[in-house]
Every structure is written in C-alpha cells, then in structure tokens.
C-alpha cells in the first residue's frame, strides 16, 4: 500500500536501480537488477509466431544453469516490429533478436548469455541489408520514431506495477493531486493543444473544461478502447503493453473534472487486453493508487472494465455510453453532448486509449514541451498501425508532420515483391485513401482532411497495384452495411443502396449513371446521417472516385478490372509467348475449361472457367495472366 508521495518515490528509486540496465546504466548500474535482463515480446503478434516457446526455453536454460539471480527474464508488450517477430532484446547492449524460434534459444544462450558473443545471424536487417544489433537505437524502423504514448510498450513488464512506477509511473498523478488545482490541470491540457487520437481530433482540454463546468455531483470518466477500425491495433498494444498509463491518466481526468468513477469500454475481441487491464486495475487498487483517499489527498477514484460485444457503432461516443448502460448500442442525437448529459445522464468525458496514454507525459514534461513536437495545428505524435502490402508491418509512433513516404519506405521498408505503391487507406471504413501523389504531404489532422481522408484512429493500410479500388470501396461498404445500427434511414438504407451499386460495378453490370448516382447518394448520406458512422461511410467511395475514377470507368465502360481482382469480370488468359505447352494447367483445371494439346498450345474457355486460379498457381512459367498488363 502506497499512502504517501514519499513512499511512491522510494519505490521508484528502488525500481530505477533494478531497471538501470535497461536505461543503459547512465547513472551507474547496481547489482540489484542482475547482470543481464532479457525481454521477450509476449503479445498477440509475436505470441502467435511462437514467442511463448522462446520464453519457456529461455526460462529453462536460466534454471538449468542456475542463473536465476543473475538473469532477469521479462515478458513485455509490443515492441512494434511485428513483421519480424518473435522479438527479444538483451540488456546490456540492447541487442535485438528477430524471428527467434525456440530452436534458436540454445545458441543465443550459449553464445550471448554465457560467452558474451551476440548472435549476428538473428539481428534485424535494415533497408541496405546490413545487420543491426541495437535495432531500437539504429534500425531505420525505429530511428524516426518518437515514443510518447508507446514509451513503455515493449520495455516494461505490463503485469508489474513496480516497473511502471520505476519509469516515473503515477508521478503525474502525484503531481496533479499535490501541486495542481483541477483548473491548472485543465489549463495544462488546453495549453498542450492535445487533440483526441480516437478519430475526430477534438481538443481534449476543451472537452474536459465543459465537463468540469457542469454543476453536478456525479460525473464519469470513460475510455474508448473499442478500436473498431479494422487494421488498427495501437489501442490494443497500449492496453497490453502499458495499461497503467491509461489508468493513471483516467485518474488525472477524474481529478480535473470532479469524478470518482471511470469505465473502460474494451472490445470483447481483445481478451488479452482485457486480462492485462483488469490485472493492472487490481494492482493499482491494492497499491492504493485507485480507490479511496489516493496518496492521502482525499481524492477518490475507481475504475470498472466493460466489454463490448461486437458492434462497431459502439465506438461512437453516445452509442458507447448507451451500451455501458446495458442497452442496444444505438447513438443519440447531439446536443446534449456527453460532457453535459452522458453516461447514466450525468456529465461524462470520453477519450481514446492513445489520448490517455499521452497525458501523463504532458503533465510531467509540460505543455510547452508537447507543443514543440508536431505541426502548427497538430501537436505531439501519432501511433500508426501499418499493415497491408508492406514489407515491415507493425506499430510506429511518429511526430505529427511525418510524411507517408517516410513511414512507408524509410521505416517500413516499402512494398514487397518490387510492386508499386498505389495508395494508403487511413481512417478505415470512415476514411479515405491517399494516392502516390501525396506521399510527401506531412501527415496531420488537417492535411488528411484536405486530401479527402482523415486521421481516424491510426490504421494505415498500404495497397499496391494488385488492389482494386472499387472492390476495396465495396469491402468497406459491406462493413458499414453490416455495422449500421439501423436507427436512422440515411445510413440503414443509403449504405445498402451504395453497396448494391458498387456490387453491380464490380460485376461488370454498371452503367455510367451509376457512378453519378453513387456520388449524389454519398453526399446526401454524409449530410443527413445521425452519427459519425453514417456521416463518414461514403468517404471511401468519395475518395476513391476522386483519385481513381478511371478504375470505376474501366469497370463500367470496358468491363475490366485493371487490378484483376473482381472475379466476375476478370479473365484468365494464357500468354502464348510465355507458354511452354507443358499441359500442367490443363491437368489442374477442376472444370476442364482448358483445351488444346502440346502441339497447338492451350486456351481457356471463358464460358466454363470458374476463375479459381488453380492454373495460374500451378503454371511453372507464369504464362497465365489475369489482368491487363500495361501494353499487353
């Protein structure tokens, strides 16, 4: 139990010594942390590629060699470079090993741990092919990153509140409770110009000020961990890697607006995040950092976790609160805004996980520091979950104003297979695409809106020449049709109609007026839907029409899918110049659509072909094409 700031500081000092190895021992290493610390990424990405096996094997080696006192083994949150997982880092030296399999552990243990010779074979490879030992310090995936929200992700044990305290955890809470009035906290938040990381980018300080000014006794602090944008996993990573930062920030918010109760709404698809967060809340309670009379200041605050149940619309703020109340998660018209009348009809603030994770840093380092990072109107950093057709998928946190080119090419290694970058989708089903022309635009809230996309929560899906933009728009509309709650008709009916038109186009049955109709419908839905879900649902269509209208026209007029994705209008063809007449395709065709013989060559009968792609997969000479190559 920590009852005073002095006790908190004493624990911090003790932990700083234990964790000194990880800070590079600048202020002198002690014996306390052992002679070596090994961190293994223990969350989703790395776990499914086998990090548990690596951890267990390391543990076995340590026990077998009776080195429990000398070597610390720690399972951490996400280290970011998911594509190269399982990842592990050995201190001192911060040597990172990538794609570690349980079979590799014996070699690492013998060579690095026992003999002091790192295993170069498993270092991360950089863009120029060089192998980098201290990847966290020198690999181009990491050098342009600036970690604020993810500061502790992958460097501490998420199940240890002591380690969090060792990296200045709960110091920001102590500072606001002891040294600041609620008004000072709100002023700091306002001065920091922090904007919400959940999508809309609303100024956090302003939201808090509204709620603080309400003369009500009961108020609530909520955290949006619904992360429904498919392709985004930064909130999950924060909860799994550094849950206490969110807990601490929510307590700070409680103090600022005058609330003693918070709720974290987590999607049920994230069982590990739920488990980690629940354990962290229990620990914080046990330590007295949640509950009654925190740090002897008279301030009380507690938290409860609520699970979603698979409804995207519940990420919308009013729907989220309705869901916590136990109802169908349908949104409500605003005003009244939640800051006035929210959860259980009381004044409520809702912020995103990443927004909260940024707050303790702002309190400790000050608003000026935060303002020194980013662009004129977007301060600080943003975490992006980079995925899709990209060499290094993973999590990156970069200062606002970083360009897409820096993220895609410098940090994430570009597009695999020598393919061309076509576009990147931000904001998921509510956002739009950024075409190659805009690769050098600094990314911030306003520039993305100007490009017809939006920041969204930070999913960044890279697409190459093999992605069909009409099909992608149809994919997102399929999502919104499915997720529309049905309360307002523009969204319920309108998204369905747009989906039908898109389906027609991808099947080669579209007409030119369909494109026009799509545009009119899209604008009407944008203007008339009740909540953000419907208002933003047309965005993927509008932005694809803005940058890739020629693809729509190719589907409608030429009845062709230039990317070769839309099955109904796509045709497999045998290129007679490449074909060596081996007859393998004919053997593998399940419907006998391929006719001919070794003498005269082979052709595909389009009326019979079911477009299963078997022939293409089996052809040893890449002679079977399914798209109209330029010039072919």
């Amino acid at each position, binding site marked *: 139990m920590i009852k005073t700031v002095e006790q908190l500081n004493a624990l911090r000092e003790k932990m700083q010594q234990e964790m000194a190895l990880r800070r590079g021992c600048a202020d002198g290493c002690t014996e306390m942390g052992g002679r070596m610390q090994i961190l293994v990424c223990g969350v989703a*990405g790395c776990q499914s590629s086998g990090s548990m096996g690596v951890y267990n094997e390391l543990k076995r080696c340590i026990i077998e060699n009776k080195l429990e006192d000398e070597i610390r083994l720690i399972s951490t949150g996400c280290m970011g470079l998911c594509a190269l997982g399982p990842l592990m880092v050995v201190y001192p030296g911060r040597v990172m090993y990538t794609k570690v399999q349980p079979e590799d552990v014996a070699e690492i243990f013998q060579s690095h741990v026992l003999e002091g010779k790192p295993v170069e074979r498993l270092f991360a490879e950089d863009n120029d092919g060089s192998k980098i030992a201290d990847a966290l310090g020198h690999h181009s995936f990491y050098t342009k990153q600036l970690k604020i929200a993810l500061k502790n992700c992958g460097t501490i044990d998420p199940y240890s509140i002591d380690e969090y305290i060792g990296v200045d955890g709960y110091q920001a809470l102590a500072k606001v409770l002891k040294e600041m009035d609620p008004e000072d906290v709100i002023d700091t938040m306002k001065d920091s110009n922090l904007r919400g990381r959940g999508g809309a980018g609303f100024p956090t300080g302003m939201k808090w000020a509204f709620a603080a000014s309400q003369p009500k006794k009961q108020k609530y602090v909520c955290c949006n961990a619904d*992360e429904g944008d498919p392709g985004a*996993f930064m909130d999950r990573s924060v909860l799994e890697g550094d849950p206490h930062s969110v807990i601490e920030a929510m307590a700070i918010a409680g103090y600022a607006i005058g609330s003693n109760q918070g709720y974290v709404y987590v999607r049920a698809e994230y069982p590990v995040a739920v488990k980690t967060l629940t354990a962290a809340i229990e620990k914080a309670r046990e330590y007295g950092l949640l509950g009654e009379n925190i740090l002897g200041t008279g301030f009380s605050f507690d938290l409860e976790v*609520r699970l979603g*149940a698979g409804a995207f619309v519940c990420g919308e703020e009013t729907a989220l609160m309705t869901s916590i109340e*136990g109802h169908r998660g349908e949104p409500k018209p605003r005003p009244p805004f939640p800051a006035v009348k929210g959860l259980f009809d009381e004044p409520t603030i809702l912020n995103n996980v990443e927004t909260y994770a940024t707050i303790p840093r702002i309190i400790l380092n000050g608003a000026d520091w935060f303002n020194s990072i980013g662009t004129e109107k977007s301060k600080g950093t943003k975490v992006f979950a980079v995925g899709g057709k990209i060499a290094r998928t993973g999590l990156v946190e970069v200062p606002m104003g970083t360009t897409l080119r820096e993220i895609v090419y410098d940090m994430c290694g570009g597009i695999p297979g020598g393919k061309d970058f076509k576009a990147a989708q931000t904001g998921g089903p509510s956002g739009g695409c950024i075409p190659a022309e805009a690769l050098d635009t600094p990314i911030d809230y306003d520039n993305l809106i100007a490009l017809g996309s939006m920041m969204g929560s930070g999913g960044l899906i890279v697409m190459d020449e093999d992605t069909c933009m009409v099909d992608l728009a149809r994919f997102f509309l399929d999502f919104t049709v499915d997720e529309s709650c049905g309360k307002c008709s523009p969204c319920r009916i309108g998204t369905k109609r747009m989906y039908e038109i898109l389906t027609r186009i991808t099947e080669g049955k579209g007409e030119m007026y369909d494109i026009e109709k799509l545009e009119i419908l899209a604008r009407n839905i944008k203007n008339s839907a009740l909540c953000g879900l419907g208002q933003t649902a047309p965005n993927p269509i509008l932005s694809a029409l803005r940058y890739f209208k020629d693809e729509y026209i190719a589907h409608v007029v030429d009845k062709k899918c230039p990317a070769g994705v839309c099955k109904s209008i796509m045709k497999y063809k045998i290129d007679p110049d490449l074909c060596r007449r081996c007859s393998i395709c004919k053997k593998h065709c399940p419907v006998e659509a391929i006719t001919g013989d070794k003498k005269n060559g082979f052709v595909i009968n389009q009326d019979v072909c079911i477009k299963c792609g078997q022939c293409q997969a089996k052809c040893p000479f890449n002679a079977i094409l399914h798209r109209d190559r330029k010039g072919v």
Partner: protein
Amino acid sequence: MANVCNGCADALAMEKALDEVIARYKGTKGPLIPVLHEAQAIYGYLPFEVQLKIAEGLDLPLADVYGVVSFYTGFTTKPKGKYRVSVCMGTACYVKGAEAILDKFTTSLGINVGDCTEDGKFSLDACRCVGACGLAPVVMINDDVYGNMTPDKVEDVLKKYEDVQEGI
C-alpha cells in the same frame, strides 16, 4: 472456454452458475451486458430459456434482453462448434487475400459461414479485425491464432483438430 451441454448434470451446474452470476450483478449499474457475456461463457450460446431466466432475474422485459442479444454480433443464439473457426476480415487481412481463405474453409468443412458442422465439431465465422494485422491474413480457432495463412494451409490446420480424440 465455453462448451456445449454434455448432459443433465451439466445442465444443473450451468443453471446454478447462471444464478450466481445474476445474483452478483443484480442491483449494479448496467448489469445486462456483463451478465450476457458470462451466461454465454457458461452455455456457449444464449438460447431462449437462458434469456428468459436473465430477464426474470434482472427484472427486465424479455424484449429488452432479446433486443440486446440480437443487436450485438458477439452474442449468439445458435450453438457453436467445439472448435470455432474465425477468419479475420479486417482490412489488412482482406487486402492480403482473406476471402480466398474463407472460401477454402467453406469447401473444406462443407458448411456456410455462420454454421456448424453436423457433428458439432467445427463452426465457421467471418470475424471483425482481431488486431493481429502484423500477421495478416489471420485465422483464429478458439484461442489459437494462425498467421500468414494461405488457402493451401487450411487443410493442415484443420487436421490438427480432427486428430484430437474426443473426451480429452
């Protein structure tokens, strides 16, 4: 995790467990959704009788309970297979070919999306982003995650579960 009912002894135990859940949440704020989650963990799904019991237990109209159950895709009124196959349809998985993988599962298992094989062994769903985008395309079978999937790997993955002897 949740299982299908194996017999009457289980049925009694499940009913008792549900009673306890209802008693624990009764009188708290917004109890319905947490109770439904726990009930589904006990029964594996939410049949009519369970919804009725919850409605009575929490003093809520049955229509409210049913309204909530039918609203959220996370709640199901159909029993699921012993092994629940979920093919992730998040954007990252989609652009990397999740649809072909889903197709392969439907043909391999001989069932449609949302259904369960006759022996109750496998059910198949297309699910929302599971947040393992670094490994796209991703398939989950119960709590096991299979990353970097291809249609060719589907049979091998299913075999792992077919070989498991019943009763273990």
